[in-house]
């Protein structure tokens, strides 16, 4: 059982705690195969020019994207996801044929597996695996892909279930499975080219021509020191020094030469063709800007690309956000919506938002709803109050209770379990309850894992998680507006685990506080990435911060035009999330309606009670009849749905 990943906690809001002294912020990773690249830098070769740190692999791309690092030893998939990073020429982590540390394993031939479990730690390897599997199956339907922790994969593979193993665990399990495909080998057989797993990737313009050679010098020192590095690794991490050395010498290819680049380009091309990664052009430190790309020649062609379901990079999304006309963004999102929901049916759910307590310890600056522990206005709803609310909901045709509250230290896991069991035993209603923040609260309070808490709550009757509390999923913004809340990685981790145990959730974004356009796009990309991994998000909902009585956070970038643009952009960026909701609770029924032409296909919930947004002064209400009238005025048919977006009424 994995508790909190150490990397997530260590790096909590650690921005700018180190004095970099104007040096480049360089981040490496603590893998055996990275040691030769890092050797010179870690031995002080460039201390006057660079500040070097090591981080968890999942952190590398995040730090680059969120401007917490200038250069990172990054897997190659983020090059495409970002679209604007520069590669430091000369060195890479790659292979030319068998690599041993990235492999598909199974009890049956891999191409015959129905299900493939993925170690999602390396997106690059996941994409490579999917390309190879697609090739091997030669036109047959894809298997089911599920993300799992590595140890669980080793334990679960068998029958028609195969797995992807990466890194140490792949090396340790040599010969343990009946069928193994070495992905380096498979790639070589498929294309005749080397494969590149990782490169030094830099934020555009930060690495000078003078600094670039330092990375190659570091590698040269490292290549010469491979025997020592292998021995040191064996001392620190276990294993056999000879085997480590053989791996470094024979398996890993460190040159980023013409052939390696051809392999990299071929990989990115195939991944884009399979819509697994955005179309991208490579650019290099010290090189003039990349060649003309017809795909991205104009905002118009980019809009067409997105409207056709093309995967957008960070840079693409930023360009659309800043340059596309509002109506054209709407048209592209509307076209994309029409492809995904061709019947012209708008859905909504009849449910009620119940806030079981307003006592909360986080004191977020944007919230007017909470009361601190001990405050005279603090409350916890009684069973009698809940009975009344739920009975009213059922009587009104409601199918679900959205139950959310503050982080009340007086309420323990047993309290929730009792409550959920009682609700499910008493009322015919689904429970859409507890945002990730509340789950983390229970994890800490009870000293359990996320998986333990979710499994117990599900056993007690929890059906799905609401996507609230995401605010904006960059740690820069979260540190400013909600210091006490979980990090973006922690928020995503709850969703990952929930999806893994079979629950569906939504994802939200509350913007308009300290966020910039880049933060909003990064938020969408994080949701997209996790959705690739799990497929568990049913819908995305963006709303804008309501700055009013009782909130302390100053409003940032807000407004109706931005709201509609953001919603349209989310429809285009989130190519793998099926549904987009309009937020008429913050923008009012009118804009909720107009939003149906800016990418949304769902009008959310009747919400006949809502306390959080309305505490800040916004009071919009719509009943089912109003929702339907607004959608029909645009020519849509309307149907009620449940949380899983299954229709409960015939569209009319």
């Amino acid at each position: 059982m994995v508790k909190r990943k150490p990397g997530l906690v260590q790096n909590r809001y650690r921005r700018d705690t180190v004095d970099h002294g104007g040096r480049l912020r360089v981040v490496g990773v603590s893998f055996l195969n990275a040691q030769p690249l890092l050797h010179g830098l870690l031995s002080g070769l460039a201390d006057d020019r660079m500040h070097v740190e090591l981080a968890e692999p999942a952190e590398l791309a995040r730090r680059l994207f969120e401007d917490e690092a200038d250069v990172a030893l990054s897997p190659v998939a983020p090059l495409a996801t970002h679209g604007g990073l520069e590669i430091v020429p000369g060195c890479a982590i790659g292979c030319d044929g068998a690599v041993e540390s990235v492999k598909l394993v199974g009890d049956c031939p891999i191409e015959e597996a129905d299900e493939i479990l993925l170690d999602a730690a390396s997106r690059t390897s996941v994409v490579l695996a999917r390309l190879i599997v697609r090739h091997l199956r030669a036109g047959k339907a894809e298997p089911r892909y599920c993300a799992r922790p590595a140890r669980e994969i080793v334990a679960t593979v068998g029958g028609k279930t195969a797995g992807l193993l990466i890194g140490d665990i792949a090396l340790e399990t040599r010969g343990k499975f009946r069928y193994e495909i070495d992905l380096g080998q498979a790639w070589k057989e498929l294309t005749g080219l080397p494969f590149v797993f990782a490169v030094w990737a830099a934020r555009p313009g930060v690495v000078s021509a003078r600094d670039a050679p330092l990375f190659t010098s570091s590698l040269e020192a490292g290549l010469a020191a491979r025997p020592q590095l292998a021995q040191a690794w064996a001392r620190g991490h276990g294993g056999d020094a000879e085997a480590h050395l053989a791996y470094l010498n024979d398996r890993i290819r460190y040159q980023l030469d013409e052939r390696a680049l051809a392999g990299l380009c071929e990989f990115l091309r195939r991944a884009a063709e399979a819509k697994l990664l955005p179309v991208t052009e490579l650019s290099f430190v010290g090189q003039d800007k990349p060649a003309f790309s017809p795909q991205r020649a104009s905002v118009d062609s980019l809009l067409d690309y997105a409207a056709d379901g093309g995967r957008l990079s960070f840079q693409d999304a930023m360009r659309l956000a800043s340059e596309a006309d509002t109506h054209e963004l709407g048209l592209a999102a509307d076209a994309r919506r029409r492809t995904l929901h061709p019947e012209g049916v708008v859905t909504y759910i009849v449910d009620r938002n119940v806030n079981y307590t307003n006592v909360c310890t986080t004191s977020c600056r944007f919230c007017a709803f909470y009361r601190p522990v001990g405050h005279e206005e603090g409350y916890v709803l009684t069973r009698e109050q809940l009975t009344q609310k739920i009975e009213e909901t059922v009587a009104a045709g409601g199918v679900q209770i959205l139950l959310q509250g503050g982080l009340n230290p007086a309420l323990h896991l047993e309290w929730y379990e009792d409550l959920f069991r009682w609700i499910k035993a008493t009322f015919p209603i689904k429970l859409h309850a507890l945002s990730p923040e509340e789950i983390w609260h229970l994890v800490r309070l009870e000293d359990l894992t996320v998986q333990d808490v979710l499994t117990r709550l599900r056993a007690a009757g929890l059906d799905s998680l609401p996507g609230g509390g995401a605010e904006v999923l960059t740690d820069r913004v979260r540190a400013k507006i909600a210091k006490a809340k979980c990090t973006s990685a922690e928020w995503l981790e709850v969703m990952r685990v929930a999806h893994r145990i079979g629950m569906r959730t939504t994802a939200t974004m509350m913007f308009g506080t300290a966020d910039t356009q880049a933060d909003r796009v990064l938020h969408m990309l994080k949701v997209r990435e996790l959705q690739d991994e799990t497929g568990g998000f049913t819908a995305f909902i963006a709303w804008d911060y309501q700055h009013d009585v009782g909130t302390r956070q100053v409003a940032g970038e807000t407004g109706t035009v931005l709201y509609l643009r953001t919603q349209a952009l989310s429809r285009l960026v989130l190519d793998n999330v099926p549904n987009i909701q309009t937020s008429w609770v913050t923008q009012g029924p009118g804009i909720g309606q107009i939003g149906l032409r800016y990418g949304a296909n769902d009008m959310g919930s009747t919400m006949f009670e809502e306390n959080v947004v309305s505490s800040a002064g916004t009071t919009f209400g719509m009943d089912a009849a109003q929702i339907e009238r607004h959608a029909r005025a645009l020519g849509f048919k309307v149907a009620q749905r449940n949380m899983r977006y299954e229709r409960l009424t015939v569209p009319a």
Partner: protein
Amino acid sequence: MTARTAGTLDAIEAKLQAGERLSYDDGCALFLEPDFLRLGMLANQVREDKHGDRTFFNVNMRFEATNVCEASCSFCAFAKLKEGAAGAHTTTHEAAWKELAEHPDPRLTELHMVNGLHPTLPFEWYEELLRGWKRVRPGVHLKCFTGVEIHFFAQKFGMTHEAVLTRLRAAGLGSLPGGGAEILHPDVRQRIATDKANGDEYLAAHRAAHKLGIPSNCTMLYGHIETFEHRVDHLLRLRDLQDETQGFQCFIPLAFHNENNSLRKLPEPTAVDSLRTLAISRLLLDNIPHIKAYWVSMGVPTAQIALRFGADDLDGTIIHESIYHSAGSRAPMALSRDELVRLIREAGRIPVERDTIYGVVEELPRAAVPEGALKVRDRMARKRSLALAGN
């Protein structure tokens, strides 16, 4: 069916590009056009051709001298039929003058007054009301009395429209607001507004004002019992008068609200209808310079997006409004100048503070980060439009 409407929008776009005037049939077709965003783009293009990104607002106040009214319009929740009825109120001169004198904003440029048709107040009472305001704050423009009120005065006091307007101008009147137009077509007007100026009389009052050099605005109350054809007819009647006089400065579409009036069983028009009506107004009224998104009527969020659907004016700070709020408007009672500027900037536009007759008081810089290159670049957008795909 889709092919026909698609052809219509293309044909209308071609007409606009050739500088041709749209017809009654074009107007009716636009109301049935399913491609709502492309309609918005067309109206936005016309708006940008006329005004670029400049978006007008003013610092004004509302005043209602009396809500006692002889007329009994079925859409109205403001008027009280008799003096002494519950909620009936008529101001005194002193109270009215004090309200202007004590208005806290030194930037105030306009007083906007609309009243009930009071059965007993003498004409001189109104003249003195204006004169007193001019004594208190001579710099504030008095935009007072709808065409319906002007016609009422003419009938009640046995004067021509010209005579009424000449005397009021002498007392300080600067221009006429556009209220009271409702729907000009007699089939509708006879059902919702039987006992006040008919459509021709409303237009006659404005014609008289324009001939005297008094500018005015015009409106349309939509979303109740009228059809799309009635709306188009209404807009073309306004366009015809404007061809004759050039006296209208601004057209303001007004959404019907349904609380506390005898049409309360009717649903209110939704935002898509409001934006569509506004966009079509921009396309049909090629001779009226400004189209206003009146935030009290549309609500603030819809008014902001309307700035990209053909509107180039957000009205003003208002301070206190009773007519729409009596009928259930949830818009705030006032917006500060800063809030108006922010709303305009957030829409990617340039805020221009104007006076009543569209003189520039101050042109403010646009937001630091503009929306970007906002022109329709090429016709590729059509590929994405609804033309052939339905919903």
